[in-house]
């Protein structure tokens, strides 16, 4: 088990270093000078442009040798210093991101976990009866093929505009200030339903199909046939198949994280939900490169943490990894 975690941890650390390097590299070595672009977009007079240029050079730390820049980037990182936002000048990037993180947790954690649990349950049911298979499976394929933003748009249009029952913009009513009152929590929940639902539904489709296929595969395995031959009740065989089929689904969750992040990003954009995804859009539209870098790093950190949590779950569920015999490939 220790070896399993060591290997995983090594990969994650390497990934993190690589991600930070990409984050550092891209603004510096892209064709075209981002600082020039920044300044030309501002449309300033020549003198002030020059002043701004030297300011940005210092702000980006571009006036020292390259290796020193890279080192400084890491040092700043460990001090939690992501620079100052240009869009919301002069707020530090870290503050802006920290304000967005709770909304991401509120939206993503329930959506991912509940869709995974529900998808697995319904997928297992679908493998059990012809009738359910004929309804859940096509629905699952349609849902998993749906682009996240389109489902978001459709739900917003249907429930927000046509039926006019749910709000579809922001995380709480624009007329409210965040507080611990019932009215605020209620508003928070109301605004949460639609983005949650669109994330939940798309992911649900994928998990249901995956589980259905895995169960059918497991029921063809030798141990299932053997149990059946022994006269074990169908329910027992199904239960064993379900437990075995869960493992690839956990691995699948880890594999899907990247796609889910992308889905969350566009869902937040559709609903103007103030998480990191929406922040990323703001950063891009306002050419706030510091904020964009910060968002990128936070997404990476989030994905790595999630991966690690999944690894722990895997060990808890699969005794073989604990015995150090074998894990996933």
């Amino acid at each position, binding site marked *: 088990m220790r070896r399993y975690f060591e290997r995983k941890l090594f*990969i*994650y650390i*390497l*990934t993190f270093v*690589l*991600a930070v390097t*990409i*984050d550092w590299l*891209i*603004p510096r070595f*892209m*064709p*075209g000078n*981002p600082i020039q*672009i920044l300044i030309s977009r501002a449309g300033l007079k020549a003198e002030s442009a020059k002043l701004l240029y030297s300011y940005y050079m210092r702000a980006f730390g571009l006036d020292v040798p390259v290796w020193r820049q890279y080192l400084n980037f890491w040092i700043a990182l460990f001090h939690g210093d992501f620079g100052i936002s240009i869009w919301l000048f002069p707020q530090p990037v870290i503050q802006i991101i920290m304000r967005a993180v709770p909304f991401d947790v509120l939206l993503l954690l329930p959506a991912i976990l509940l869709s995974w649990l529900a998808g697995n349950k319904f997928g297992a049911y679908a493998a059990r009866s012809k009738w359910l298979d004929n309804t859940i499976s096509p629905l699952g*394929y*349609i849902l*998993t*093929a*749906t*682009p*996240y*933003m*389109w*489902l978001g*748009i*459709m739900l*917003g*249009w249907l429930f*927000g*505009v*046509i039926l006019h029952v749910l709000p*579809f913009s922001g995380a709480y009513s624009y007329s409210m200030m965040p507080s611990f009152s019932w009215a605020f929590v209620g508003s928070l929940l109301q605004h949460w339903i639609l983005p949650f639902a669109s994330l939940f539904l798309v992911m649900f489709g994928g998990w249901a199909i995956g589980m259905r296929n895995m169960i*059918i595969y497991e029921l*063809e395995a030798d141990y299932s046939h053997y149990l059946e031959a022994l006269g074990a009740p169908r329910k027992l065989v199904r239960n064993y198949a379900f437990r075995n089929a869960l493992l690839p689904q956990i691995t699948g969750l880890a*594999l899907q*994280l*990247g*796609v889910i*992040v*992308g*889905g969350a*990003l*566009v869902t937040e*954009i*559709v609903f103007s939900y103030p998480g990191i995804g929406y922040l*990323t*859009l703001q950063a*891009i*539209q306002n050419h706030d*490169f510091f904020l*964009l*870098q910060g968002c*990128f790093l936070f*997404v*990476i950190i989030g*994905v*790595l943490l999630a*991966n690690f949590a999944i690894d722990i779950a895997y060990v808890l569920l699969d005794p073989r990894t604990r015995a150090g015999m074998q894990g996933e*490939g």
Partner: protein
Amino acid sequence: MPQPRKKNEILYFVLRNAKLRIGVAVVFLFVVLALVGPLLTKYQPRDYVAPGVQPPSSEFWFGTTSFGEDVFTQFVYGLRATFIVGLIGGGLGTLIGILIGFIAGYRGGIVDEILNMFTNIVLVVPSLVVLLIIAAYLEVRGLLFESVFIGFFAWPWAARAIRSQTFSLRSRDFVDLARLSGMKPLKIIITEIAPNMMSYLLLVFILQFGGAILTAATLDFIGLGPTNGVSLGLMMNNAVIYGALILRMWWWFIPPGLAITAIVGGLYITNVGLDEIFNPKLREM
């Protein structure tokens, strides 16, 4: 090992499989629309054709946008872009996956270790966010560029799957025999291993195709797609930005999303159908 009888058998199951028929029909329909559609319209995607906010009519089949552009024209040109991204992005993703998967699976040992680690790293990094940050710094972006970059980040799961398949084929008797007879590794992979995985590679390509389309739609929707031309994702982006929801201009945002869902869904169902044909165990379900 050619088996003439087997061809008819496969054809029989192809024609009998409802999933495959439906999936292929849906995808084919949109391919035809993408090819023929631009010929049916006399406008360009960004042309001002009529006063804006018109619902579908006999003249403008899909209505017009807030700026008086013809939605149908944008739609068919967007379809073209969608298929190009799928073909190039999905194709490249499959190709890299095959390359890395074959090498890692056949070589084994230290090469496998290194490639496996590389694969796992790219697998963990959320590719869309990397694409996003690259695209955000580029002033001019083309469709080809987008497709290639999507392909560059889409291969890991394919490489992993192909690696494990190659791994299990490597120790079969006929591969051993080829090796004993002094065949070069590359030739063994091409003539002995690859033909046994052809069906599997086709399935991988179909999934990569669908995945590339969805990734491109996401990028386009954020506004980081190609800077020239239209795409289905960009149509949805414009619809949302310019308030199509509140203005109830459903004809602006339903066609692009519906098309993507139908194409990708069609591909997935085709995939399941093919899987049932190639894998006899699944047939009778």
